[in-house]
């Protein structure tokens, strides 16, 4: 499977033409995944629904900043939703331009054929595999990854919070992510 979905690209083209039905179809395709993430971060239905709406509105308003060659649309939406949710949680952005998808950077001259294939996050089997890998991670690796991803903590903040050295925190995150990466690569061979 290629790293981008042709249907998504076509719907994004529709959004660029201000076709609200195209946005609606993308919303229906991905709203569950985005909402689940926002809810996991915020633990508040109303706030998570606000983040969900803002995420897709941003897609509508600034779709030109998304490039298929940068990765799957769902990865992009999840990144946006995560940043919005974390910002909402903190009431202020810790890193205003942390969203690398929306900071306006240009990736000229990228050859899509040279990009790696990535398994689709919409594949339920992949979701099961990722959950299984996460469950099987040593508790200390799982904790730092969840705190970094769902709480948005930096290495330094994790070090302070957990009372571990910076090096230990980095090593544990790297080890955990490497197992997720291997799981993703395994799925590329499947679908």
């Amino acid at each position, binding site marked *: *499977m*290629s790293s981008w979905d*042709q*249907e998504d690209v076509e719907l994004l083209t529709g959004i660029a033409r201000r076709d*609200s039905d195209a*946005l*609606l179809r993308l*919303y*229906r395709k991905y*709203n*569950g995944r985005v*909402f*689940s*993430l926002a809810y*996991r971060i915020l633990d508040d*239905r109303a706030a*998570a*629904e606000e983040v*969900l*709406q803002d995420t*897709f*509105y941003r897609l*509508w308003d600034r779709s030109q900043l998304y490039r298929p060659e940068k*990765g*799957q649309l*769902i*990865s992009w939406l*999840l990144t946006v939703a995560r940043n919005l949710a974390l910002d909402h949680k903190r009431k202020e952005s810790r*890193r205003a331009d942390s969203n*690398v998808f929306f900071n306006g*950077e*240009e990736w*000229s001259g990228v050859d899509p054929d040279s*990009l*790696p294939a*990535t*398994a*689709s996050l*919409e*594949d339920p*089997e*992949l979701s099961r595999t*990722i*959950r299984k890998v*996460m469950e099987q991670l040593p508790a200390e690796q799982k904790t730092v990854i969840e705190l970094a*991803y*769902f709480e948005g903590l*930096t*290495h330094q903040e994790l070090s302070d919070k957990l009372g571990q050295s910076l090096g230990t925190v980095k090593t544990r*995150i*790297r080890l955990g992510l*490497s197992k*997720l*990466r291997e*799981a*993703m690569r*395994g799925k590329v*061979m*499947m*679908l």
Partner: protein
Amino acid sequence: MSVDCAHVEEDWELFALGSLDEADQQRMASHLQSGCKECQRRLVEARAVVASIATTAPARQPSARVELDLMKRVRGGKSSGPIWSGFWPRWSMAPWAVAAVCLVLAGWFFWQQRRLGEELAGANSVIRSLRQAGAPTTPVSPRITEAPVTGPPVSPPSASPENARAADTGPPENRSSDNRRLAELAAENEEIRKENTALRAASAAAEQHAVEMQAALNAAQARTDALTRDLQTAKNSGSENQAEIAALNGQLSKSRDEVARLSQVMARSAQIESLLRSGSVQEIELRAVDPAAGKGFARVLYSPQGGLLLVADSLPKLDHEKCYQLWVIRKGAPAILSAGLLQTSDDGSGFLMAQPTNDLAQLTGLAITDEPKGGSVSARGHKLLFGAR
């Protein structure tokens, strides 16, 4: 951290995670802007790895109101209009949900039409052969797909002058046999017409069921929200009544399960509907190619735009440690892709739905294998059923 192409995958994963300190994050972003293709490639993969963490969040569904609000916002605060136009012309006020029963019936209706169409073709073939033999014939109209339900049934050979003249041709024993066959065809036609009427009635009932299921989902959602509020209130008030909190937690858990179940049913229904409406739907029949498959068979409907739907029957029960897995065989590499695990029942039926993917455009065949529980990354089990385009 130095910024050069010595970056390893882990660096880009930390970058995508956003856990680096700001200085490192900025340095790596600047490096990306220099146009380093290798690092761009690594970042694409790193983003997918990091985003995969989101899939560990428990599945939840937003309320239908979010969609309405989003569309209203997008359309400039004007009336949100018929959001469902083009999808649900008759259910303009219905939300995204369509009850599973309705869609399964839609699928059933689709198959019935196809089956009856095949019967019709067979009947017309018989009639053509009778005509060639000089027997009186009444063409069987394509009742299901073209003729109205209330259309006149096909009559047995009548005593019209034309038929009478035609009936005079050929040996008497042939005429008698042909007349019996035509009478059978007419009776069969009447049965099919009644069946079609019943199907339409079932479809209308399913539509009503869909509305009821949506109401059930809304009620379950409201119940969950209310329980969540009650629980929070109990916690906030420092209630020492642990039993009350435990009871609320229990109810909340059940309510959430119900919401998840209904949401899953409706999501599946929407996918079936999407497949049936996607056009250019292809069909493949899978037959047993190994004695271990017994009398198992399966039918698959698929389209690159609508996804894949498999319904299987008479599958032998597998060992507890095994499961059925469907594989897509296609042109290109990799040539064999997993399409997922079948959900099976004790009665031998099986079901699988897969999301739309362009890989289906290159499909040349499908195979079902038995694999270790949880499925395999690549097909290793016995090829039990197979079908080709």
